[in-house]
């Protein structure tokens, strides 16, 4: 049973465009949602995170939009660059319980 779902599985956008990565979840008890970025040959690295009491979080060119009622969130990457090409994982956690990861979205930015 996959509790955190990501779409699309892969996404290609042109340099300078906004890339939008989607995530939905089933467990309404989840209250913390980190996004991780993984480059080939490396481990995932925390990129940005949001708590369920907020509906938006910005950090540089990365923005999370969170909809608690619909149980979904999205990561927007503004003015995307080829260096942003990576796999992005949406994750969710309930209190101090283990983090549940989505299956990832592979993002390719074409120059």
């Amino acid at each position, binding site marked *: 049973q996959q509790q955190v779902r990501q779409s699309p599985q892969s996404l290609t956008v042109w340099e300078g465009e906004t890339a939008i990565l989607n995530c939905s979840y089933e467990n309404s008890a989840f209250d913390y949602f*980190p996004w*991780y970025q*993984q480059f080939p*040959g*490396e*481990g*995932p*690295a*925390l990129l940005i*995170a949001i708590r369920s009491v907020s509906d938006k979080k910005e950090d540089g060119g990365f923005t999370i939009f969170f909809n608690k009622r619909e149980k979904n969130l999205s990561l927007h990457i503004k003015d995307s660059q080829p260096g942003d090409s990576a*796999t992005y*994982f949406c994750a969710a*956690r309930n209190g*101090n*319980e*283990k*983090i549940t*990861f989505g*299956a*990832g979205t*592979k993002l390719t930015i074409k120059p």
Partner: protein
Amino acid sequence: ETAVFQTPNYHVTQVGNEVSFNCKQTLGHDTMYWYKQDSKKLLKIMFSYNNKQLIVNETVPRRFSPQSSDKAHLNLRIKSVEPEDSAVYLCASSYRGLEQYFGPGTRLTVL
């Protein structure tokens, strides 16, 4: 800057052999984890461990076992590897179950 160290980077072995992977974190975290990442990039948690409790994912075969000497080290032993064990094994750490920091991974190939 790497703060979770894993060795080796790569390991190739034959079916039935025993392997051991090392992980060390220098962040002063109290919890460490092992994940398996398959060829489709799916992240599956195998173990989480702090100085009080080992939590095992019930789907992990018994040939896998974590070994810890102190809270900064958590090694992974596989007693008799099988072809389906080929994957990237990622070590991570966190403080009180908050943001997880990952190592670069160990890529295992079982021939």
